[in-house]
């Protein structure tokens, strides 16, 4: 079990008052809050050893480089990758685009398979690639219970499939996809996984999953904004050509040609986001100290309670699996006759932060037959009291709108 008192104290923002009310932050799928250890690391970096890295002989440069590479080690260990397979980018979206741009030079005709539950960041890059290359863009459906329709997915994958781009966890439905299974049954295509929503909540082992690319964002897992991770399997990373040019990715430049640096630098161009990568290392250490199994257990506990409570609210329609094992604690819903924006606005007046809108998943919205949803997403600092506040808040929404 998590020590909730201790954890809540680690997050300074939880002391903030919203409209005079206690902040109930339930927008974690958009971005998480940051523990004081991470904020303190940023301050320490800038006050004690800020310098540009890698090509530095001076003491500050050496310190900054060591801390930066230490963070890479932390991340590698966190997902069971090799250090040279960890590429720092600016966010999950850049990671997925990096995969698409570099693969675009490798693949020609054929098709790309993705799913209807993708975030735009793992949908549009592949859609655009297909448009540019006149390739076929295939979109697997979901089941009535909001899980991935594997049958449909496999029927869309064939010998001409060049890339499978799939999210690990849906940012709207909360559904967990069985990546390991798809990797096994998906054939020879490159397999690109969007782990933006899974990395914060589930223990990831890239070797077990056996994927080629896997991307996630630091800011959704206690890290600062401005850092993403792209895991690229070593043999793939070695074969492909780099994406952005300049800085540490370079070995030698001549007027007419350039030689690339070794992995992982080959894919890291320009001065990296040194401070935030170093602070992200601290975030990973924080998660490691809490323990990913405890993170998951807490998530399951909240999910179970939430599913029970939300079911009882009249007029509330939940979009997502009803079995705890199929999902994480992301709850998208609509209340009959009330738009999600109005739900979010009224909840905010009670200090409760939830997201509303299409959640960067318009194809899924159309599939669900809605224009938008309200979404409450939980993390380890959220407890039963926060869930209670949400339920009470929803009652207030209905009161303001005079529906019951």
């Amino acid at each position: 079990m998590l020590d909730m008192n201790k954890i809540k104290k680690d997050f300074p923002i939880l002391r903030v008052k919203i409209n005079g009310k206690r902040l109930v932050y339930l927008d974690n799928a958009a971005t998480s809050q940051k523990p004081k250890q991470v904020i303190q690391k940023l301050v320490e970096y800038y006050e004690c050893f800020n310098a540009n890295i890698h090509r530095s002989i001076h003491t500050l440069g050496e310190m900054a480089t060591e801390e930066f590479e230490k963070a890479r080690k932390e991340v590698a260990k966190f997902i069971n990758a090799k250090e040279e397979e960890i590429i720092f980018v600016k966010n999950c979206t850049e990671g997925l685009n990096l995969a698409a741009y570099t693969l675009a030079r490798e693949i020609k005709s054929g098709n790309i398979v993705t799913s209807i539950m993708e975030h735009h960041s793992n949908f549009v890059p592949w859609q655009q690639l297909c448009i540019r290359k006149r390739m076929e863009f295939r979109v697997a459906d979901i089941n009535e219970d909001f899980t991935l329709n594997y049958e449909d997915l496999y029927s869309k994958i064939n010998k001409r499939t060049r890339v499978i781009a799939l999210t690990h966890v849906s940012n709207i439905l909360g559904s967990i996809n069985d990546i390991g299974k798809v990797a096994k049954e998906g054939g020879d295509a490159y397999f690109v996984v969007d782990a933006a929503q899974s990395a914060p909540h589930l223990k990831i082992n890239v070797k077990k999953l056996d994927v080629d690319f896997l991307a996630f964002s630091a800011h959704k897992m206690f890290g600062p904004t401005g850092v993403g991770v792209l895991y690229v399997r070593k043999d793939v990373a070695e074969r492909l050509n780099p994406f952005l040019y300049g800085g540490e990715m370079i070995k030698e430049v001549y007027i007419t040609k350039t030689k690339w640096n070794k992995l992982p630098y080959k894919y890291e161009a320009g001065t990296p986001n040194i401070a935030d990568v170093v602070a992200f290392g601290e975030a990973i250490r924080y998660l490691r100290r809490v323990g990913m199994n405890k993170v998951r257990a807490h998530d399951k506990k909240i999910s179970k309670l939430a599913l029970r409570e939300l079911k009882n609210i009249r007029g509330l329609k939940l979009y997502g699996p009803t079995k705890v094992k199929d999902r994480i604690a992301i709850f998208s819903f609509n209340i009959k006759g009330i738009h999600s924006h109005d739900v979010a606005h009224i909840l905010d007046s009670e200090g409760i932060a939830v997201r509303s809108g299409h959640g960067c998943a318009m194809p899924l919205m159309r599939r669900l037959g809605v224009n938008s949803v309200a979404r409450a997403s939980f993390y380890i600092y959220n407890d039963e009291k926060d869930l209670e506040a949400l339920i009470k808040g929803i009652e207030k929404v209905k009161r303001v709108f005079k529906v019951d």
Partner: protein
Amino acid sequence: MIEEIYAERILDHYRNPRNYGKLKKYDVKARDVNIPCGDEIEIFVKMKGNKIGKIKFTGHGCAISQAAASILSEIAKDLPKKEIEKMSYEDFIKKHLKINITYRRFGCATLALRVLKNALKKL
């Protein structure tokens, strides 16, 4: 107070939008979405000289955006084109919506007026 934003009048316009629908015969129409929300408004206008003769709208979205469209359709009727052109978004909110709107709902509250201004530009 949140109840002031979701006043009786706003909720009424939201639930019973005036001038909802399409015009079969119109001089101009325009459509836009409010990107953060996905709220959508389409407006049809039939002019009477320099004035707005008939106006109808369709769309979907939050109470604010839909009520604003309904309220706009009421006040715009018979108004000279110029009046709409020079109407500021802030004034529309203050004088006609009569609620307190901050940055985050500004787009919702002004979507309909933006669409109407764009429609009139096509004349």
